[in-house]
């Protein structure tokens, strides 16, 4: 609390200019707020949330749980073992969906997983199996798991197992397949399935042995923090992070008792994949967001995830409830001859990186990314500056060098999103909209405003009910 009467006051002013002008004429220091009428949420709901006496403390609790979370790589093992994925069940990215509502790349990935698991011999048979309801579908997020793009995870797939050393909580993600025609982008051809088998038969066991043999588990939070200082933002750019991971794991990998050729192939595979780290970064962010749990009164976002059809948002104050709306289609640059008409709507759990405060929120750390939309370095800085205005805290562990090593903008506040009208900035890959295509580009996207409108209404309703 500052003493109002101790001297001529400096002032922050929101509203009509005439007051600011009069204050400046008197020599007072005035900071103008560039206030806009909120376009998300009703005035009543925004006021209800603003006045909720639980909010400040609840948001503090929520964001501090995020900042306190740490992530270490403790194991690599099949999904059937670590998350109990059994029978004909497939996990997918984003909020829950059905085969009927699934987009092209999601269908392609689900079909590919059925082929990989041997539940079907042909794409047609896989399609039939899925269309007949022969495979149970569920969100990765419901199983402490996150998956990039389609995020399709099947029982035999090997998973990164990330553990918070302070409380033993875990989060999981499958192994990254590389770029181009890959399952997560909706491709399901023979080369995709062959690669998945190699990852399961060769790479998974070698990584497991390597990870288990390390004297200390790999500090993945530390890698993420370092890569932000090396030109990565941890979502669309994972180059430094992938190399650091390779550097950290290589000594253990080469020491694994396995054929030399297999070890060489594993190292070559990791080294050739700029996004190898993404599948470690995502469960690291998931661990942090899962630490929050249900915090009544909090307006902090705990999940941003897309399934290729819908975008889903969850908040600490409303727990497991999804607020969904049709996903936007990213804007960006395209590989080869692909164009905007080839892009599928936004897909993937990888927006967990932005939920955690990196990715698009740390655009300033990776100015290369704004060039996807023809942006410049100042645009990158401006993006991160805006994200500070919709978040609750700066994460001292994740620093952005060009901003004077300021901490990453962390803990998206639904109320601030509604009041500023600035939606979270997400960096993303783009999958082809036709099943089987694979990646067509990469770019930038935002959630639909409707998700936040629903979240505001639900949080306000809960607030009224709780406060009576």
């Amino acid at each position, binding site marked *: 609390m500052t003493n109002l009467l101790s001297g001529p006051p400096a002032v922050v002013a929101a509203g009509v200019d005439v007051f600011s002008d009069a204050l400046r004429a008197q020599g007072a220091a005035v900071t103008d707020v560039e*206030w806009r009428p909120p376009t998300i949420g009703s005035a009543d709901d925004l006021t209800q949330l603003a006045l909720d006496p639980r909010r400040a403390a609840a948001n503090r609790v929520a964001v501090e749980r995020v900042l306190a979370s740490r992530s270490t790589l403790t194991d690599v093992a099949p999904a059937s073992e670590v998350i109990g994925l059994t029978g004909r069940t497939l996990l997918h990215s984003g909020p829950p969906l059905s085969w009927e509502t699934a987009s092209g790349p999601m269908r392609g990935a689900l079909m590919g997983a059925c082929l990989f698991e041997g539940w079907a011999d042909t794409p047609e048979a896989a399609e039939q199996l899925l269309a007949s309801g022969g495979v149970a579908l569920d969100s990765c997020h419901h199983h402490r798991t996150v998956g990039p793009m389609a995020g399709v995870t099947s029982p035999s797939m090997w998973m990164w197992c990330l553990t918070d050393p302070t409380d033993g909580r875990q989060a999981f993600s499958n192994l990254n397949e590389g770029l181009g025609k890959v399952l997560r982008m909706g491709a399901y051809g023979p080369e995709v399935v062959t690669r998945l088998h190699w990852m399961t038969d060769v790479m998974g066991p070698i990584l497991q042995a390597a990870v288990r043999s390390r004297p200390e588990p790999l500090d993945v939070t530390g890698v993420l923090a370092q890569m932000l200082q090396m030109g990565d933002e941890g979502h669309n750019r994972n180059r430094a992070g992938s190399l650091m991971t390779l550097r950290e794991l290589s000594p253990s990998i080469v020491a694994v008792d396995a054929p030399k050729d297999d070890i060489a192939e594993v190292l070559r595979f990791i080294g050739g994949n700029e996004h190898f780290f993404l599948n470690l970064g995502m469960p690291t962010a998931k661990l942090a967001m899962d630490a929050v749990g249900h915090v009544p009164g909090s307006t902090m976002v705990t999940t941003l995830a897309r399934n290729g059809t819908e975008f889903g948002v969850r908040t600490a104050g409303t727990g497991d409830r999804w607020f969904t709306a049709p996903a936007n289609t990213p804007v960006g640059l395209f*590989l080869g001859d692909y164009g905007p008409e080839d892009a599928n709507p936004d897909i993937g759990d990888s927006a967990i990186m932005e939920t955690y405060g990196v990715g698009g929120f740390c655009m300033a750390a990776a100015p290369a990314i704004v060039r996807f939309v023809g942006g410049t370095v100042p645009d990158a800085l401006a993006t991160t500056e805006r994200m500070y205005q919709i978040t609750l805290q700066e994460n001292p562990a994740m620093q952005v060098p060009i901003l004077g090593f300021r901490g990453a903008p962390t803990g998206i506040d639904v109320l601030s999103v509604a009041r500023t009208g600035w939606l979270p900035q997400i960096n993303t890959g783009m999958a082809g909209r036709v099943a089987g295509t694979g990646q067509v580009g990469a770019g930038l996207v935002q959630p639909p405003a409707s998700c936040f409108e629903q979240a505001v209404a639900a949080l306000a309703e809960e607030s009224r009910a709780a406060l009576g």
Partner: protein
Amino acid sequence: MSGSAPDPTDARHVSLRSGVYADSVKLMQVSKAVGGRDGVTAVLVAMATPLNLELAAGMGLSPDAGAKPDQLLIALRAVDEAELAAAITAVDAALTAREERGSADAIPPRTVGFALGEQQETPLAIISVPGPYAVAEAMDAVAAGRSVLVFSDGVPVEHEIALKRAAHEAGVLVMGPDCGTAIVSGVALGFANVVRPGPVGLVAASGTGAQQVSCLLDMAGVGVSHVLGVGGRDLSAAVGGLATLDALRMLDGDAATERVLLVSKPPAPEVAEQVAGTAAELGTPFSSAALSAASPDLTASVEALLQEMGVDVPTWPTRAGADRAVPAGAVLKGFYSGGTLADEAMLVAAPALGDVRSNTPLRPELDLGADFGATGHVVVDFGDDALTVGRAHPMIDPTLRLEAIAGLAAGGEPAVLLLDVVLGYGADPDPAAALVPAVRDLPFPVVVALVGTEGDPQGWSRQADALAAAGVHVFASNSAATRYAIDLIGASK
């Protein structure tokens, strides 16, 4: 895939360059820029990785065998050789183009909360956004441990109460909502006058009342330490004086404040009692200029305070206007911009004239509704919330009041016209200029309460002289102006 199928008649270029590295994003941008040229049908500028070679093959533009991942692949197809050559030149230009350097313009804050987070030393926020959104901004300030002045009106009373309770717990002050006037350490906030610094601290549930009192104190050579507005509803039974009590304690702890004076429209009796109880516990002498039938006169309250302080009561400035005849049977027409000044005029006039009807009546049965042309004694508050929806306050925009004056002149009812003109920051830069044409040729007397100081941007004397030259009788004291108007009416009987 988009794009056309390979056509053997097209011009093609496939080359590999060594020793050239560019980021894949940069290269995708180059491909996009060159692909946008009319004559270009396909383009891939990329490092010759297996993935990109596969893409090139799909486009029918494979390089010779032996491409290495550290080589730059330039693969183009154009409608003819000239376009192809131009495209290759464009690739080179795009590859070497320099981008804008870092350093973003600062992004302005969009919320009070964010602005205060950046401005840790700032003790005060001023909110004048539309009423339905004001509480969210004000709550940002309270949550950040800063005081806040809410100029906005239209804030529901239950939100005002919640905001003020939170402020009390945070140890900060909420001035308002609908607080038009405050002065903090000499800085005028909203509608306020340029008054000398002095020992009297005002707590004001009334904007124009505070302006009248602070201007008179200035004219008496006393001056004010602070004027803390609390909003017109603060002393209602519902709000219970939440901000008034906090403001009293704040001033009690302020070294510059030696006297505390409360200025208010008539408060709820139980709240007045509670305020008196708190005031009695203060170490600083307290007096009240709250209006009531028993205490109808702000000027008298100021004079009483001056006497307590041992200061001579000055002769309050006046200017004589034209000696117009008072028409027989004249009634009082008080057209006010200041709500408290209107209340004061009614309280002063009622004993002499009997009932005065108003849109802000002393008793509900005197409610005028929207009929400002009604006959008889009438006082209209043009600054009332109901009349400022969608338009500026009459201290800025005189249109409604000028229309009413014109209506009065046209109606022919015998009258004495009583007006207030409020000077200071935020007010019309030259109110006399707008008023003079409307009153110069009226066939009946016009009396103006001119609330301001010589230090105001408009200058009390400059405005007074301009009004007097138009035949208007000018008083620095509203109660004196009202009594003069009453005397004119009485003399006509």
